């Protein structure tokens, strides 16, 4: 994927931007929608995306002088599911290494009943990273400095 960033750099015009949207390593929270509002029922266990790898990729192209970091903004990305069964299937299919623990499942059953049909939300911390395409002269000078 570093190659993907280099490929993206090629098709960007001078001063063009990379917008990288992804989750952060902090754990996601599971919420249950009830008549009283959204209640936290637990935290998602495990991680589903290789956020550290993506960060390493971004850092590498910045070190190589291909891009300059510009801005970072945090936001919450919410995944709404219609039942506990849907939530579990979604985690299995889309979040390869994440799961909900027994305590969270018990809380969900207490709030939604034995069939656990109702809105369950994964509240995932996420960030948008903006990088600016660096000019070729900057890359050359960085490479020259590195060669010295």
């Amino acid at each position, binding site marked *: 994927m570093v190659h993907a960033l280099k490929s993206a750099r090629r*098709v*960007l015009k*001078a001063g063009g931007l990379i*917008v990288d*949207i992804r989750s952060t390593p902090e754990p996601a929270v599971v919420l249950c929608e009830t008549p009283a509002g959204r209640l936290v029922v637990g935290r998602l266990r495990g991680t589903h995306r290789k956020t550290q790898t993506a960060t390493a990729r971004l850092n590498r192209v910045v070190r190589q002088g291909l891009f300059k970091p510009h801005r970072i903004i945090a936001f919450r990305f*919410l995944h709404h599911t219609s*039942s506990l069964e849907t939530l579990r299937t979604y985690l299995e299919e889309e979040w390869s290494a994440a799961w909900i623990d027994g305590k969270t499942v018990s809380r969900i059953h207490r709030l939604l009943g034995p069939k656990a049909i109702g809105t369950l939300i994964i509240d995932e911390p*996420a960030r*948008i990273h903006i990088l600016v395409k660096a000019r070729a002269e900057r890359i050359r000078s960085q490479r020259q400095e590195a060669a010295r």
Partner: protein
Amino acid sequence: MRMRGVKLDPEGYEVMALDRVVSLKGKRVIEIGCGDGRLTRALAERAREVVAIDPNPRDIRAARQSTPKHLKRRVRFQVATAEDLPFRDGEFAVAVFSWSL
């Protein structure tokens, strides 16, 4: 393809955050790894033109089908890989990786 019974970001927090950090007005945008086009539609509402690529032909078909009529002229979906982008140098002002890096 999105699972039945799952809605992603129905509150639109992702797009709100995007609007705070980058203006796409009048720009040509490439979305790399567009999946089923969930974010592509929001990008197309804002940009002059969006080219959205994904290596999965099934996702590209789904993305095309779910694009509203009024955006079809501004969006082009294409099966392609991020590592080998079939476009000329300097064609785009913004490249978006949405959960795809």
